[in-house]
């Protein structure tokens, strides 16, 4: 982690509305397959490693860059680093990957890649993120794991906590 922020003033994007729960969603008899929106909800609130903002607010993740094929057990996520030489790209990709590995059933094959043309070392970062052996080794590094958990750990909504006091 560098001491100075690489991108001091990132552009902010509007968050999408919360998902509306429909009667169909609550009907236990209807098979409810994973869709792009559900995958998006799993990763949109991951925190940026540098800024007190979510990946959604920085437009690093977008619902339109998520593809899911339930039958083939495939999830493909593209993410867009805020700047083309962002040194945090691997860490951000790793956080997305870890979050999806933890949250989704093990049958899913998860690919996390940089949106084409948005990073100077796109190929190298993609290769590292796709190498499950290196990802496994990285996750045994307690310092790195702590940083990733901090990114993934969603912020509590203060009113909920204070409401219980």
């Amino acid at each position, binding site marked *: 982690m560098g001491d100075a922020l690489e991108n001091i003033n990132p552009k902010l994007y509007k968050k999408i509305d919360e998902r509306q729960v429909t009667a169909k969603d609550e009907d236990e008899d209807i098979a409810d397959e994973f869709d792009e929106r559900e995958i998006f909800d799993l990763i949109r609130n991951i925190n940026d490693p540098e800024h007190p903002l979510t990946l959604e607010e920085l437009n690093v993740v977008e619902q339109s860059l998520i593809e899911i094929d339930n039958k083939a057990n495939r999830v493909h996520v593209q993410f867009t680093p805020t700047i083309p030489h962002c040194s945090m790209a691997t860490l951000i990709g790793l956080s997305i990957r870890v979050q999806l590995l933890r949250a989704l059933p093990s049958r899913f094959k998860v690919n996390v890649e940089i949106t084409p043309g948005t990073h100077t070392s796109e190929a190298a970062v993609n290769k590292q993120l*796709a190498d499950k052996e290196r990802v496994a*080794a990285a996750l045994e590094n307690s310092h790195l794991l702590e940083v990733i958990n901090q990114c993934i750990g969603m912020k509590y909504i203060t009113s909920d906590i204070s409401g219980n006091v």
Partner: protein
Amino acid sequence: MGTLELKQTLSGHRGRVWNVCWHPKGTCIASCGEDKTVIIWGPQEPKWVTKTILTEGHTRTIREIAWSPCGNYIASASFDATTAVWDKKSGQFECNATLEGHENEVKSVSWSRSGQLLATCSRDKSVWIWEVNDDEYECAAVINAHTQDVKKVRWHPNEEILASASYDNTAKIFKEDAADNDWSCVATLSSHTSTVWSLTWDKTGTRIATCSDDQTVKIWQEYKPGNEPGIVTPNNEPTWKCVCTISGYHTRAIYDIDWCKTTGLLVTACGDDIIRIFKEDSDSDPHQSSFTMVCSMETAHTQDVNCVQWNPTVPGQLASASDDGLVKIWFYSE
């Protein structure tokens, strides 16, 4: 098409199983994984059962294990940057030597045919060769020929020649120079477009099969100086040429490959959960060989298949290991 029949599912590991290795007599297998243990499984009629669990040798994931050719030792390579050697001098397997030196994760370990040499490789990009003398292990060479993480090391079936596979998309061949006892790279096999995860020699040691993240398998043929087709051999060293690319079958990274020394069949372990078997065509030209898929076992495991290995003595018997935490024993018949 042949058939692959599941004989038994062995559960006991917690988490991902990275590797499985047959005892040289084909009588039992060892497996290892994320749970930092080595399990030795053996038949106890009518089923295979856990014989021994080796613990406390490593502090992190055990990536690979290898039986010595005599069957009395097991070497284990770990993400904790060490390689442990276990022997059963006391009656049961104990870790009596720990080989240190790599800067980070050790990815693979292999014994030479004589059992006198051990090779290890690591994410630190190096390949180490250790000499074995009366249970003492001395580093004979540190080879820095690869430019990236080295994934696999495998000795030639008969000679003291080593092959390695790497994240730098190449495989390399190493030999000791008789003049100055120095180990150096004598050939680089480049053609894959992504990580080479594993490699396997054929029984004669004149061919190598490699598998890659680029979803292909490649067959390489050795051309010695003075070879008949007239392939140029610089420095009087053999040249290795890719004579076949098996593409269009695998849909994700191919993590392992094994060339059966008795039947000549190739088996692959793939990230798409499938085990595939390939057979060389009877009219295959050695300079432009051709292979046909004879078996594809869909959902061989419920997650990535990490390792496949033929039984060295029982033709058709196969063991596999997977991210789903299981080891499976199979039987292939034509």
